[in-house]
């Protein structure tokens, strides 16, 4: 017993100078890390009834960067995305285990679901503008969150549309129905609508898969610009798109996160053979 006690003691004594240095630098590193990490997922397990859709996933989404989630259909990447703003709550029989944080706050406990969804905006696969005017589409979110003055709303609408790079196209038809727009315009309108509630994170759920190549290019360009102000997390089927747009990529397979790293490294020099197979198979 005494031996054991003696063995423990030294670690509790003052660390040596070099040890201290390394501890400090570790702390700084962690601080830096958390400063750059906007959202974190820790040991996330998700079940749809009996089905285990996400298995012990942990990763952190760096601030002001674009993170792409890739993998074959049904691998859990969209599920993960919908967990980040709790849209999975709508799915009957969906159970979430683990911890998701937004700026260190527990997204499922510390933040109300409506607040979370305001701070973590989402753009869907199919453009889904509401069947009302362009203006009312953008103003819906701000009105929801308590902005009532016309001048304020006008300003938000214009700013949001400008940020989504669609102001020039739509400024003369703000009062027209949003359903009359082209698919690409509708999707950019939806991005503007998401930006209008001043989100911190933007989730894109295969948001270009329903669009033509030109509209896709416009949205990719937009995403590259938006990351200056927002943290972007996107699900994509299109590996070229992940390469073009994202800084970090996570590869999912059957509910496992196989690999997560810098996009260029993951594509050119994957660690896991499964990633290599998937990436090269798609390119081959």
């Amino acid at each position, binding site marked *: 017993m005494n031996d054991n006690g003696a063995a423990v003691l030294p670690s509790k004594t003052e660390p040596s100078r070099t040890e201290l240095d390394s501890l400090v630098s570790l702390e700084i590193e962690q601080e830096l890390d958390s400063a750059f990490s906007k959202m974190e997922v820790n040991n996330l397990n998700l079940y749809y009834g009996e089905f285990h859709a996400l298995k012990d996933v942990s990763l952190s989404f760096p601030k002001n960067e674009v993170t792409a989630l890739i993998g074959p259909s049904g691998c859990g990447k969209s599920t993960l995305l919908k967990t980040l703003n709790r849209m999975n709550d709508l799915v009957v029989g969906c159970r979430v285990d683990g911890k998701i944080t937004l700026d260190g706050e527990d997204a499922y406990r510390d933040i109300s679901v409506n607040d979370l969804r305001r701070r973590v905006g989402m753009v869907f696969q199919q453009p889904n503008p509401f069947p009302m005017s362009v203006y009312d589409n953008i103003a819906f979110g701000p009105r929801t969150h*308590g902005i009532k003055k016309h001048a304020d709303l006008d300003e938000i609408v214009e700013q949001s549309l400008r*940020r989504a790079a669609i102001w020039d196209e739509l400024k003369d038809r703000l009062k027209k129905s949003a359903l009359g727009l082209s698919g690409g315009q509708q999707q950019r309108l939806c991005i503007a609508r998401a930006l209008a509630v001043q989100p911190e994170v933007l989730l894109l759920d295969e948001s270009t898969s329903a669009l033509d190549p030109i509209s896709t*290019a416009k949205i990719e360009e937009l995403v590259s610009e938006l990351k200056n102000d927002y943290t972007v997390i996107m699900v994509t089927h299109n590996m*070229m798109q992940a*390469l*073009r*747009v994202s*800084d970090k990529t996570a590869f999912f397979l059957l509910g496992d996160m196989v690999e997560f790293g810098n996009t260029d490294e993951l*594509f050119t020099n994957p660690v896991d053979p499964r990633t290599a197979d998937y990436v090269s198979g798609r390119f081959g």
Partner: protein
Amino acid sequence: MMGKNDTPLELSAVGATGAAGANAVGNMPPISKYDNVSPRHNMSVRIASLVMRGVVYLGAIVATAVLLLIVGYILINGVPYITPSLFEWEYTSENVSLMPALIDTVLMAACSLIIAVPIGVGSAVYLVEYAPRGSRFVRIVRITTETLQGIPSIIYGLFGMLFFVTALHWGLSLLSGACTLAIMILPTIMRTTEEALLAVPDSYREGGFGLGAGRLRTVMRCVMPSAAPGITSGIILALGRCVGEVAALLFTAGTIAQIPNFVGQGAFAFLDSCRTLAVHMYVLASEGLHMNETYATAVVLLVVVTVLNLAANVAIKKLRKD
């Protein structure tokens, strides 16, 4: 492929600043109007949600309460007065038996269905299976069906009185009443049959034609069987309307509480006046002499209607299962 020139490696190597730096968007001020939002906003959101939910639940409660109130009130007041004398074969002003009315109801409903079902189903078959889709004839038939559907029963009653009773000299009779009801329920049968036929996948028809069957055989053997539950539910709905109808029958079938004498008169019994259960109940209620028996009659009417409703639901369930 997407029309961008950057190679992937370059783009991600340049990272956060490169691609966006060229564009002005990065310099935009943040949307800051949210600073002005009243701190009590969360409270008002919660109250608004509660109010909206309250309104919606209230609507559901009102509908439920109304249903329970009507059914409960009729049952409580009527069930104790369901006595054997109410079901005696002969109607007298003492026993106010509903037996003749019950039998008349069955006769009336059967006659109108015998007239309306072949016509309704036949025209739906023509519209769906034969006529070129969107042709002028189809459009006109659609418009007339919609028109018929909207006409109130009192207008059918007026028409039946002018046409069947007076112009055709059928008098106040089972036949006049049944013909009037047949026109009234025709759109219901046509519509439900059409919907049922349209729901049958085209592959069934192709299967029939592929085997060399003609159109008639294909429709009868391949399409009709899977449309049958839908058609049945439509017929049951129509039956329900026949059972509950009063306004269309007052001036076409009359109000005499007797069973048409088919034994004595043969086919001429169709020209006898008769009263259905609903008409019987109306007459009792307006005479105001036998309120307890009126409640009891209402109970019988409710039971008949409920049974028909259940039957229609069973048919629809069967359709869904297929």
